[in-house]
């Protein structure tokens, strides 16, 4: 899910990867407060969408990771799809990579510093998978370059993490590895692979990684959730599930801070939720104990300005929430939360698809 003003009308819209209908959907806000929904195009098991102007034509194209199938599968059924924005709500579909290990993430970035968009791609796969970047040869033709051969990449955020003017990227690698890798841009298409944190618990359940400057020191940190239980015989919470802040100390040093426990944690976001000027954290739960009606499905951690976080349960229903976004949807200066549900296992009694949450 992503929030972006796709049609440039000044109103934020919501892009939704719908793995049930195998479609990329557009919940367009127009007029303010009204949200009709339409289909942008077909994508098998879409896992991630990013709006990015690939050829700088002034319109946001849509980069979509297609897993081929959401549930475990080792076949090379993933693909990278770009919906070229033709304007007036029209899109042209380009498959720029196919027969790949299941693709969980794709991001656009000027990795070579020459004004040309390259792609960063996380191929989750299953037994095999990889993290790679794709070199743009023009006319929607891209050539893959593998930078890491471990299966299980989930998210691949891109940013100038070290303030050297070059875009690097991270890869959150799950499966038996449970590691966060950072690929430092050495220039000329070369990247140095460094593990900035990893768990030795091979069952840690990495589930989400976003970049944000949590402590306002000008360096981008990471917010990281672990709460995955997708391929267990008994999906459910584990005692180590939770949320953490990986602090960027500068000079290629990082510090791990456990923020709190949260069973089944997924979909981290970072935003000032209470308007006090400090960056708070947000996550949802896909795999909490839903037999207990009090189990929390959405939780915030409020920052006191010194990065001491107080957990605040926000909701217990609906259950099985997978993803979040935070944005001021109605333009009143107060952020709203948008959540996406994923109901792949019982109970099926408190379900949702895409929800808009307003602060009381």
């Amino acid at each position, binding site marked *: 899910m992503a929030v972006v003003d796709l049609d440039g009308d000044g109103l934020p819209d919501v892009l939704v990867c719908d793995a049930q209908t195998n479609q990329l959907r557009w919940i367009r806000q127009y007029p303010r407060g009204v949200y009709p929904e339409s289909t942008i195009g077909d994508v098998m098991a879409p896992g991630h969408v990013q709006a990015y102007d690939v050829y700088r034509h002034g319109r946001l194209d849509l980069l979509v990771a297609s897993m081929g199938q959401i549930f475990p599968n*080792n076949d090379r059924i993933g693909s990278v799809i770009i919906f070229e924005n033709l304007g007036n709500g029209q899109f042209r579909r380009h498959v720029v990579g196919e027969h790949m290990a299941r693709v969980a993430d794709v991001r656009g970035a000027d990795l070579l510093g020459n004004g040309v968009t390259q792609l960063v791609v996380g191929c989750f796969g299953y*037994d*095999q998978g990889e993290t790679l970047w794709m070199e743009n040869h023009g006319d929607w033709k891209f050539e893959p370059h593998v930078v890491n051969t471990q299966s299980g990449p989930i998210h691949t955020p891109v940013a100038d993490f070290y303030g050297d003017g070059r875009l690097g990227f991270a890869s959150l690698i799950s499966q*038996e590895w449970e590691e966060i890798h950072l690929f430092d841009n050495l220039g000329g298409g070369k990247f140095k692979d460094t593990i900035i944190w*990893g*768990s030795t618990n091979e069952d840690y359940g990495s589930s989400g990684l976003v970049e944000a400057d949590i402590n306002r020191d000008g360096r981008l940190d990471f917010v990281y959730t672990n709460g995955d239980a997708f391929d*267990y015989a*008994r999906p459910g919470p584990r005692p*180590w599930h939770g949320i953490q802040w990986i602090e960027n100390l500068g000079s290629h040093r990082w510090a*791990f801070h456990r923020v709190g426990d949260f069973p089944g944690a997924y979909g981290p976001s970072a935003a000032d939720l209470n308007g006090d000027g400090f960056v708070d954290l947000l996550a949802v739960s896909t795999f909490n104990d839903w037999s207990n009606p009090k189990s929390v499905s959405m939780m915030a951690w409020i920052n006191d300005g010194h990065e001491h976080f107080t957990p605040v349960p926000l909701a217990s229903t609906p259950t099985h929430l997978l993803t979040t976004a935070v944005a001021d949807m109605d333009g009143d200066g107060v952020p709203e939360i948008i959540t996406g549900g994923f109901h792949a296992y019982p109970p099926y009694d408190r379900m949702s698809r895409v929800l808009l949450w307003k602060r009381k």
Partner: protein
Amino acid sequence: MPRSRLIALVLVLSGLAVAAFAWHQRKLLQISAVVRAAVSPLPDLAMWPPEYAARVRGATAAANRIEQPLEALSELACLYHANALYREAQQAERGLHALEPKNAQWAYYLADTCQNLGDMEGTRTFLEETLRLAPHYPVTRLKLADLCLKQGLTDEAIHHYEWRLTLVPNDPYAQLGLARIAEQRGNRAEALRLFEIIVRTSPNFPSAHSMLAELYAQGGNEARAAEERRLGSAAGRFIEANDPFLYRLYAWNFDSYRLDAQGGSRLQVRQLEAALPFYEKAARLAPRDSLACDALGNVYLQLKRLDDARATLEAGLAVAPATPSQLPISNSCSARTSPEPECSGTS
């Protein structure tokens, strides 16, 4: 012996006995105080099997009595640790480590609880303590190596991996770590060499096949990549290295998820007999859990114990008649365990 000397001797002996008793009592009180501090308040046991709840309550009560508190605390630590109640386990294990500082098992369990609670510094501290107490326990080296690798301390990781290889020659886990470091450092040829050694010496180690497949694919050798992908998938899922300290905890396991996971990891590598006790215990602890019946029935089926499979799957169906996966399997067991019809004709 003069009477006065006799009296003096008796007095001295009596004094010594009183002092010994007092020392013993004081020691017991000291132990008891440490043990009491190490016993956490009872967690919510409502959702646990009655047998587990009873044992936790019993061990908690025993640890608060003055007789044999160590044994009770040890039981409590194992009950908590084996069932993933890590905060309670950690409290008990800290007490045990203070009372038995030379027992490597408690240091190792503390490292494991720290790991499971996401405390990497604590993990490292207690792994190093374990190494000091039991330098030849091989998995400590591996865990330290993996921890260093995941903290970006690759030189230290290499040191520990190489030590591990002196303790366990051809160990695929250590070789995997060394190969990953070589790859991370851009030394593709060395990585390739090490992965090829692993798949030759440990052909059932899936991660090496998978990563070798990726390297072959990068090198343009799609045929070998495809073969390694096939072998990697056939080898099943990654399982952790042999760890006798942690294996001891299985006897205290009452958590159906962990029983499933432990049984499942053995099934993945076709160790059916080894997997069976975990599934049997899960089904015994939760006789009304159709998933547990389903899983156990399937293991029996693979072991060709068709009568047991049928009975177990039918028990699952009785609990949850709508469970779709059990019905055809149960029917197939019935068909296969029915007497063969006698041949009445002639050919």
